[in-house]
């Protein structure tokens, strides 16, 4: 079989602009999932982070769809999902639905191997009483990651390949993504996903990504 590739755009052609961290901090709101008030909140606000405490009662993943950086406690969170692993299960579910988001899980049980294994899908696992320096470094890392469309797509691409998509399908989606970002139109990527003969699960993943991540990235670029 022959494929006509045309002249594909390089992914490195987007997301190369230098990002001012202060500006990025003002654009990215961080979601906190905890059954208790989030202790480092005050210090993080002093350091100009935007924090939204959503509480522990997340009933549907749609509630966090607009947040690119999500910080979750492990105990007492996400009980509605019915797993004894509580927050660890919730983090795993978020990762499945939104592979591009930057997830931070924190717990008092950082020594526990089963707990750490349950949290491997999180980008960072930190102690409940981590120093403010650790929080700042972790959240800045997360913001840098999610504000860059290129890094965001690389996360998504990894998830698509893990789902068994063919390289040619991923390439087509990548080209549509680049066009979406360039032309500030999330529908280009969603339409491409709908037109490809990929699994329904993969389709939904990409459509969700274009409606949340791509729309947010475009909104941020437009200063909305």
């Amino acid at each position, binding site marked *: 079989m022959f494929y006509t590739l045309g002249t594909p755009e390089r992914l490195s052609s987007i997301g190369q602009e230098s990002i001012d961290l202060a500006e990025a901090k003002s654009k990215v709101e961080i979601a906190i999932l905890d059954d208790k008030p989030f202790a480092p909140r005050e210090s993080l606000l002093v350091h100009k982070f935007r924090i939204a405490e959503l509480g522990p009662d997340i009933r549907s993943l749609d509630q966090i769809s607009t947040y690119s950086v999500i910080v979750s406690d492990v*105990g007492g969170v996400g009980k509605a999902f019915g797993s004894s692993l509580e927050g660890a299960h919730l983090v795993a579910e978020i990762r499945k639905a939104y592979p591009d988001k930057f997830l931070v899980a924190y717990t*008092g049980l*950082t*020594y526990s191997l089963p707990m*750490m294994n349950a949290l491997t899908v999180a980008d960072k696992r*930190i*102690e*409940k009483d981590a*120093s*403010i320096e650790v929080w700042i470094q972790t959240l800045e890392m997360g913001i840098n990651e999610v504000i860059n469309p290129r890094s965001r797509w690389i996360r998504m691409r990894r998830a698509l390949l893990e789902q068994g998509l063919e390289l040619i399908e991923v390439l087509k989606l990548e080209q549509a993504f680049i066009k979406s970002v360039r032309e500030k139109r999330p529908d280009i990527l969603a339409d491409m996903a709908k037109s490809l003969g990929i699994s329904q699960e993969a389709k939904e993943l990409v459509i969700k990504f274009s409606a949340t991540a791509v729309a947010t990235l475009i909104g941020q670029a437009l200063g909305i």
Partner: protein
Amino acid sequence: MRYDKQNKKLMALQNEVERLRTENELLKSESQSIKEILDSTLHEVRRFSAQLLKFAERLSRDTDGQPQLNQTAQSLFYTAGMISSRLAYTDIELNPIALESQTPIRSGIYKKFDKAKRILAEEARDCNISLRLNGESRVEIDALPVFELLPFVLLDNGIKYSPPNQTVTVEFEVHSGRQTVTVISMGPAVSREELPKLFDKGFRGASTKSLPGQGLGLFLAKSVCDFHGITIRADCQSGVSYQLNGIDYAEFRVELRF
């Protein structure tokens, strides 16, 4: 007749196996319940520690224009941070893999010793000991949360083992391009034979036997150095400087090479 003897032996062994099995089950359930206690304790202590850090930091900010109060607030904040560092060390003791998930932070060595000095300032004053940092260092390393324990333990040991009216000095120097930090204090004399064992868990020199302590400080310091690739070496001046309460004292040095 011989079969009877064998059967009896077999039965006794079976009983023993049964007894061991029951004991094993008991130990398993005991270990599970200890694990549950440990889990909930660690979880709660970490929660309180996070709260304490929050309040101490707020106090430190709110007392910005009041130097004396602010110093106390800062000491409180740093001390709260020590709880967190100690728990990070507990994590590694319980499960060495925990080391991999700790986040290193770029930190100045001098600043870390200064922090430990502030935490221990009052204790030193109570023991009539002066703490002094000599020289300077702008060297930074990628420090894990457990790093805080290293300067704290070394200064704490210096205070604990010094006789009154002495000084614990921390010298910052650069030797052959490497940052060296030496903690110098008067302490109970350590023989040449004892020196290599000083970093062993629970080891206590002959002259410190009558003094309080568990022989954990230098062991812990060595572990923290190992996590960070720092060379640690202890030395004691040969000969005795003086005797006090039946204890021989001599100059004691712990050298760190970064």
